[in-house]
């Protein structure tokens, strides 16, 4: 294979522009005469809106428009990818802290901000629920108006939906050991570096909208419905986002800015602050109870998983997060009997949405940790126990789904080898290992058009959003490989619904497989045109000619693409156009509406050092290995998993929302919501991939880059346990939480031995990372 094509570690297309500030993100695009929008919110979570007085706001010089729900077309439209529950602006009641009640458009940002402060809202704060306990209390106030769910028996509760999956009777299963524990996963936010930004402008008899959205075509549909316009009159510009991680999948404030632009008759622009973004998107928190039955030899008897996920005030895509994330709760294992119950619980908090891993990290944290406990209780090495139960390739480990699609034991063994599993450790250190699985897309539809131009250069049209994952580079590599063009002669066009063919969405690590196949098919269509061209030029039957990876093979010689294209097109020039479609249809009756296109499989193994004086957990070495089928670009594959691993360290070690009694996020913003920086990386981070070309994507590729996030928390917690003996079932493993657990451990030990605890740290003994017994 050529150094530029498939399998080459080419630097990411557009990477230079990203790091030098040349790339135009939505917030960088300046439209002439654009008005600046500022949202108006209340200082509490849930309130009844009594009156809105915009007079003073309208008096601020430069203010053009002030809108509240009453100023919008009535009834105020509601939208959402699963339930149409989110109003364009709060109607009568706010349901979470930060929910927009009104919006101001003004000539300057300062004027908009000042006017927003002057919008006077009379309101009455109402009782609200911010936690699972509160939301599930039978007397809890309802988050969602039951009228939105007519006929639903759950409509009188805060449980939006229940999802049940299982096989065989767990009650009938006999087990030698049953391990049951409950695990908590905190609320965390995406923290994309690019701010969420939205613009809209009247565009002839339609509208143009710019958004940092991941799913431009989906947004186009939402806007068409709300505005009552045909799809062709809605042009969505979706410049490459600067990080999305799921937070930018679905429409949020685009309907509002679109209506404001139409009302104002000129462009409007809204760029969220980081604080507003915290209030707009987050991951679904969860409490997961796991009951695992083991046979004495370490094989599983059953898994019984009950997961309550805490959603926000509107469903967004989060109920799908719950159903799809909990569905593979039994992991990549052979589990004879299983019962999984997952509930979507609404609360008066920031609406949760898709976030890298899509509901799986929450259950995987719980289930893998529980397996670790079982292994210890049985005296079996946690890696061996996992390998013993691991589904072998082709095994229908989830009875009604795609069978195991990889040689997963290779991945686990590679990670174990890279961490030095089983080799001696210095004191104060510990190791942990975990496996993780995520179901890939269950349905999908991607189209691509590829144009081979007269000089042999290529334009690829693909509706994927490249938010940093490197899709542009992958598609260019596929086209280079198939059409024999140099990589820098390939242009990939994305992010404009008026130009680029339809793509369902950029999510679930799908694009390399689904859009990649669409690009591949479009290229192959061009290849067959080249074949016909060569047949015509050389006066022979097309069946004698083969076109493969940019080479045209005649019975007696090989020609390049250009050797055929130039004479074939002739003096008028022109081009060859290929179209590709990749579709994965719904499967009626399947619990998720479709089986997995592929599984993402990862093994993470870590070595940690715990500072017993402070509770600090230092990642000495972090190994992440994924089964990717085929790494079309190994550099990108490694780096994507590095990113996922680090993002996983965020919720594992430091990230979480902190609320006050009124449901306001206290650590709103970068100062007190901490994400890992370069200083917080593992001392050594090893990212590797297993490639057996056994995926459904081009050249055997599978989707990847969520997998490396699935196992971080359970692997780190297991390592902390190995180092200290502590079992912590709450995340994050912040220094203070670990320190508390250490004190409890010491107090318990003292109680047993009757020893008196020293009131303070001995002056001489408090050295760095003081080791202790295991």
């Amino acid at each position, binding site marked *: 294979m050529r150094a530029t094509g498939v399998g080459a570690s080419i630097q990411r297309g557009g990477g230079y522009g990203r790091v030098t500030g040349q790339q135009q993100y939505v917030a960088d695009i300046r439209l002439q005469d654009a008005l600046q929008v500022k949202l108006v919110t209340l200082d509490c979570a849930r309130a009844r809106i009594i009156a809105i007085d915009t007079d003073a706001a309208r008096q601020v010089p430069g203010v053009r428009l002030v809108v509240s729900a009453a100023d919008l077309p009535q009834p105020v439209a509601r939208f959402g990818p699963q339930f149409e529950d989110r109003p364009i602006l709060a109607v009568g009641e706010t349901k979470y802290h930060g929910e927009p009640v009104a919006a101001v458009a003004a000539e300057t940002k300062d004027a908009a901000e000042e006017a927003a402060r002057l919008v006077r809202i009379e309101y009455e704060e109402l009782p609200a629920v911010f936690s699972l306990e509160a939301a599930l209390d039978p007397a809890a106030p309802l988050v969602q108006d039951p009228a939105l769910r007519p006929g639903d028996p759950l409509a009188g509760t805060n449980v939006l939906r229940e999802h049940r999956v299982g096989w065989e009777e767990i009650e009938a299963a006999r087990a030698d050991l049953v391990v049951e524990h409950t695990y908590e996963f905190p609320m965390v936010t995406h923290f994309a570096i690019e701010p969420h930004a939205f613009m809209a402008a009247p565009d002839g008899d339609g509208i143009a909208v710019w958004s940092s959205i991941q799913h431009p075509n989906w947004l186009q549909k939402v806007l068409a419905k709300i505005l009552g316009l045909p799809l062709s009159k809605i042009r969505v510009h979706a410049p490459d986002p600067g990080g999305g991680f799921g937070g930018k999948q679905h429409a949020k404030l685009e309907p509002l800015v679109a209506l404001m632009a139409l009302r104002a008759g000129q462009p409007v622009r809204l760029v969220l602050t980081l604080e507003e973004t915290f209030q707009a998107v987050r991951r679904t928190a969860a409490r997961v109870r796991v009951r695992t039955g083991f046979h004495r030899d370490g094989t599983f008897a059953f898994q019984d998983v009950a997961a309550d996920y805490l959603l926000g005030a509107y469903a967004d895509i989060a109920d799908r997060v719950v159903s799809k994330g909990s569905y593979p709760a039994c992991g990549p294992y052979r589990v004879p009997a299983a019962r999984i119950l997952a509930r979507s619980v609404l609360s008066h908090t920031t609406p949760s949405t898709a976030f890298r891993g899509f509901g799986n990290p929450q259950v995987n944290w719980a289930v893998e940790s529980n397996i670790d406990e079982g292994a210890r209780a049985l005296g079996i090495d946690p890696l061996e126990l996992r390998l013993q139960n691991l589904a072998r390739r082709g095994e229908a480990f989830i009875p009604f789904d795609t069978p195991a699609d990889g040689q997963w034991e290779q991945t686990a063994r590679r990670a174990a080898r890279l961490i030095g599993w089983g080799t001696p450790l210095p004191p104060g250190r510990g190791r942990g290992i975990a496996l993780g699985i995520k179901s890939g897309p269950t349905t999908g539809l991607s189209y691509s058009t590829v144009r081979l131009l007269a000089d042999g250069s290529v334009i690829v049209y693909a509706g994927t959003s490249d938010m940093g994952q490197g899709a542009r580079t992958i598609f260019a590599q596929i086209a280079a490989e198939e059409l024999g063009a140099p990589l820098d002669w390939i242009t990939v066009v994305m992010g404009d619904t008026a130009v680029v063919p339809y793509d369902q969405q950029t999510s679930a690590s799908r694009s390399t497989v689904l859009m990649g196949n669409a690009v591949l098919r479009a290229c192959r269509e061009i290849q067959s045109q080249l074949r016909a061209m060569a047949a015509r030029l050389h006066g022979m039957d097309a069946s004698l000619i083969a076109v493969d990876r940019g080479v045209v093979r005649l019975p007696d010689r090989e020609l390049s693409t250009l050797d055929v294209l130039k004479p074939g097109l002739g003096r008028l020039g022109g081009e060859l156009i290929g179209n590709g479609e990749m579709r994965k249809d719904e499967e009626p009756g399947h619990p998720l509406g479709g089986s997995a296109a592929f599984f993402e499989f990862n093994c993470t193994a870590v070595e940690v050092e715990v500072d017993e*004086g402070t509770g600090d957990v230092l990642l000495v070495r972090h190994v992440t290995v994924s089964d990717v089928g085929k790494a079309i670009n190994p550099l990108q594959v490694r780096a994507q998993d590095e990113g996922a691993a680090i993002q996983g360290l965020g919720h594992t070690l430091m990230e979480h929302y902190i609320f006050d009694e009124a449901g306001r996020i206290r650590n709103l913003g970068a*100062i*007190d919501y901490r994400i890992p*920086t370069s*200083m917080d990386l593992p001392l050594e981070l090893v990212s590797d991939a297993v490639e057996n070309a056994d995926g459904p994507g081009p050249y055997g590729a599978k989707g990847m880059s969520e997998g490396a996030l699935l196992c971080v928390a359970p692997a780190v917690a297991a390592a902390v346990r190995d180092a200290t003996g502590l079992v912590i079932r709450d995340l994050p493993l912040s*220094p203070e939480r670990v*320190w508390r657990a250490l004190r409890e451990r010491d107090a318990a030990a003292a109680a047993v031995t009757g020893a008196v605890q020293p009131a303070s740290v001995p*002056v001489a003994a*408090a*050295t760095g990372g003081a080791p202790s017994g295991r």
Partner: protein
Amino acid sequence: MHTFAYERPATLPEVVALLGRHGTDARLLAGGTDLIIRLRDGTLHPGVVIDLKRVAELCPAIREEDGRLAIGATTVMTDIAADPRVRRDFMALAEAAAVVGSVQIRNRATLGGNICNASPAADTAPPLLVYGAEVVAAGPGGSRRIPIADFFVRSGQTTLEPGELVTAIELPLPRRRMGAVHVRRSRRRGHDLASVTLCCGVDEAGWTRLAYGSVGPRPVLAVDESGMLADPDAPEAARAEILERLFTDASPSPRSMRASPAYRLAMLRTLGARALRTAIQRLAEE
């Protein structure tokens, strides 16, 4: 952001005159890393902001004079952390300056701003207390010196009089050899505001000076002149008792979300014991 008038005086008397004219409606701007945040979030809305960066008398500088190292109020952390004289005689101050925020912040953040903002978590406060610094203030009545131990009142509040500003911070050059270290506790290794800051200095006469912040309304200095603490051979129990006494002024707020009072107090002790060991070691290596 609220609108405000912006003044950029060229001389110290002009600053003093402007402060006199605008009173509490004026705010001084040095690096702006504290001030701009509060202007943006609306917790401060001064009518006038007076920029100190072009004041001739305040040009950032570190000078040795009359047995003192004088650090101009507008000297930034990056320069303090790198200065060979600071590193030679006041290593713990260099260490503190080197952990303030990130590289970008340190290129803007001034020493004057750090102490005048008077955050209990200000990183330079503990070493300045340990080294016995003096704050040089200028005002309508001329110039005066304030011992650093008398400077801090509570967050945002110092003993500067209305109309006064800080022109320099002076450190007496050590007459006795001292080993000192600055340590801190944060929620991550990357830049973070500290939930405990602590500086420990041990000198050749056996005195231990311990200063700590972020565990009460203002940074605290505590001194052991008995020589016991600095003596690794002294009885362990006696040393522990002295160390414990040095921490009696710690009273962390229960309202903070960065760390609970229990954790802060425990970390004060962990960091204190570790810093003491390092300080003794550094003195020995001098």
